[in-house]
């Protein structure tokens, strides 16, 4: 027995050496942490329970790599705790054959997904792997779909998130693209269906990793990634922060955190943020950050479709989602990308029982041939599905413009809100006033001596009907509030709406939610 225990210890120690001192040095030289250092940073101190530490590669009929050794078969897997709550970690080890997907490496990942699914434990993937290990996969036949289906089935049941911390291609990039929150490290990360060599063979194009699928491309242009981080440690801090707002699984409510902000805090300066000329933009984030608990706003996708702001926050200690128009960018118009960003975030909030605060200032869905070509109509209308099946408290506050379907998409009439509020500056129109008058009053305008003067007179007269007060008179919103009292009023409404949490939570999504 003693000899066997010695053998066990020797094998464990070998596994901790990763791909060897030289490769570990190269990893550090690139500014990257090792897989084990990343797992240590991710999980609470001393909480790591490793599985599959002794895994190694399968033996291929024709050995192609001399002295092939693959500690943990190139992926560090196990469970631990994040801020005291359970979480799974799957960290690819680039120092072992480029973090490539060996057959046993794959089995380890699938086992982790199976256990996380069974125990309803969030999974944090730390990607740094180059795709299939070709010597093992040649002759393996039909590519597997089942692990992607496992991700889909877990979606909306327990959080699945990822840090991309190196070049990630093939299977790793496909898995990464399915995650609900993806942080990419600037300069080192890449997500691509095929890496630069494969692109060269396929299409003849020569591209760098950064151009092909770097953090900037995916977090600003494609929207596949969510947030960028300057280094591994910052990315891991972001992953931990994201989870701090979410329940461990959909059978629980989000964790409450004792606030260090006053729920009754009035803020007289809120009324000064809007410009005197209401046709000019302002920064919605200035309003949002002053209303939620101090320093609690965690923006998601800050660089993509910036006319739509989404993020997690706390209101008197309760975790919430925030969806807000950004009038500073494209006047807050809802483009196809903005619609897709809204829909996905709203589904995520609904999946994890996060109440949603909408801050509205939108002129509507973006018009014009380019917007139609992008499919803004369909992307905008998917939001109606999210509202139809939402079971979380919804609070809407109209700051200024609430026009057309754009207003509906931000929590319009009859969207099931627990509270609809507006500032006195709110302006509502089912259709734009100027073109509406041109259509409805055509005969009047044509008969007028001075057509422009008549148009202006009609706009002024009918515009009176479109402000906050007429809408409140018709009881189409619940109340008009002073900007200064926004925070206390939202907290009152939220805490009243949370009364329904006396019921046990369960998963809200019928088919998970789409990436």
């Amino acid at each position, binding site marked *: 027995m003693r000899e066997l225990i010695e053998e066990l210890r020797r094998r464990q120690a070998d596994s901790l050496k990763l791909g060897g001192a030289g490769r570990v040095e190269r990893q550090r030289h690139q500014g990257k942490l090792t897989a084990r250092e990343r797992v240590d940073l991710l999980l609470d101190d001393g909480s790591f329970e490793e599985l599959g530490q002794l895994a190694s590669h399968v033996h291929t009929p024709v050995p192609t790599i001399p002295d092939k050794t693959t500690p943990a078969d190139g992926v560090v897997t196990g469970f631990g705790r994040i801020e005291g709550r359970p979480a799974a970690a799957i960290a690819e080890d680039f120092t072992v054959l480029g973090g490539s997907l060996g057959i046993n490496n794959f089995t380890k990942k699938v086992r982790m997904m199976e256990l996380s699914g069974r125990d309803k434990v969030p999974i944090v993937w730390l990607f740094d792997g180059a795709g299939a290990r070709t010597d093992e996969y040649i002759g393996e036949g039909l590519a597997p779909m089942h692990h992607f289906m496992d991700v889909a089935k877990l979606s909306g049941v327990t959080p699945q998130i990822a840090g991309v911390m190196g070049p990630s291609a093939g299977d790793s990039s496909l898995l990464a693209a399915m995650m609900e929150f993806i942080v990419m490290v600037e300069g080192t990360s890449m997500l691509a269906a095929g890496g630069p060599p494969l692109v060269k063979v396929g299409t003849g194009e020569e591209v760098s990793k950064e151009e092909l699928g770097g953090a900037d491309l995916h977090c600003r242009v494609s929207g596949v990634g969510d947030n960028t981080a300057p280094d591994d440690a910052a990315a891991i801090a972001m992953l931990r922060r994201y989870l701090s707002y979410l329940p461990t699984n959909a059978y629980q409510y989000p964790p409450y955190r004792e606030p260090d902000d006053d729920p009754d805090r009035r803020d007289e300066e809120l009324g000064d943020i809007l410009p005197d*000329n209401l*046709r*000019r*933009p302002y920064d919605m984030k200035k309003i949002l950050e002053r209303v939620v608990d101090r320093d609690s706003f965690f923006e998601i996708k800050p660089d993509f479709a910036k006319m739509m702001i989404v993020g997690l926050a706390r209101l008197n200690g309760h975790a919430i989602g925030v969806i807000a128009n950004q*009038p500073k*960018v*494209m*006047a807050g*118009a809802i483009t196809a990308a903005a619609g897709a960003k809204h829909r996905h975030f709203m589904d995520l909030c609904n999946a994890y029982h996060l109440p949603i605060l909408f801050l509205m200032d939108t*002129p*509507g869905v*973006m*018009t*014009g041939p*380019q917007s139609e070509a992008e499919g803004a109509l369909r992307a905008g209308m998917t939001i109606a599905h999210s509202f139809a099946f939402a079971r979380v408290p919804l609070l809407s506050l109209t700051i200024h*413009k609430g*026009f057309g379907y754009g207003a509906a998409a931000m929590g319009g009439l009859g969207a099931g809100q627990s509270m609809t509020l507006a500032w006195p500056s709110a302006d509502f129109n089912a259709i*734009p006033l*100027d073109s509406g008058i041109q259509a409805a009053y055509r005969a009047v305008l044509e008969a007028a001596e001075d057509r422009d003067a008549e148009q202006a007179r009609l706009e002024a007269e009918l515009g009176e009907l479109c402000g906050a007060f007429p809408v409140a008179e018709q009881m189409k919103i619940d109340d008009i509030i002073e900007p200064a009292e926004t925070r206390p009023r939202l907290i009152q409404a939220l805490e009243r709406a949370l009364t329904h949490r006396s019921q046990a939570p369960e998963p809200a999504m019928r088919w998970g939610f789409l990436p």
Partner: protein
Amino acid sequence: MADIRVQSEITGKVWAIEANVGDSLDEEDTIIVLESMKMEIPVVAPAGGTLKEILVQEGDAVTEGQDVAVMDG
């Protein structure tokens, strides 16, 4: 000094030109104001520098991504 091409982020009409060629601008200073989606949307200097050229006139239609001014970075 490389030229900085200042682009419109949205399709619309030039509502007003607020800066003059030769002006020394800070980042975020307004160069042109567009009218689009019922709003006045400033096109701002992406970085500090001197305004070298304005490529549009009041009333012109501009498209998303179109160069509207050039600055010396």
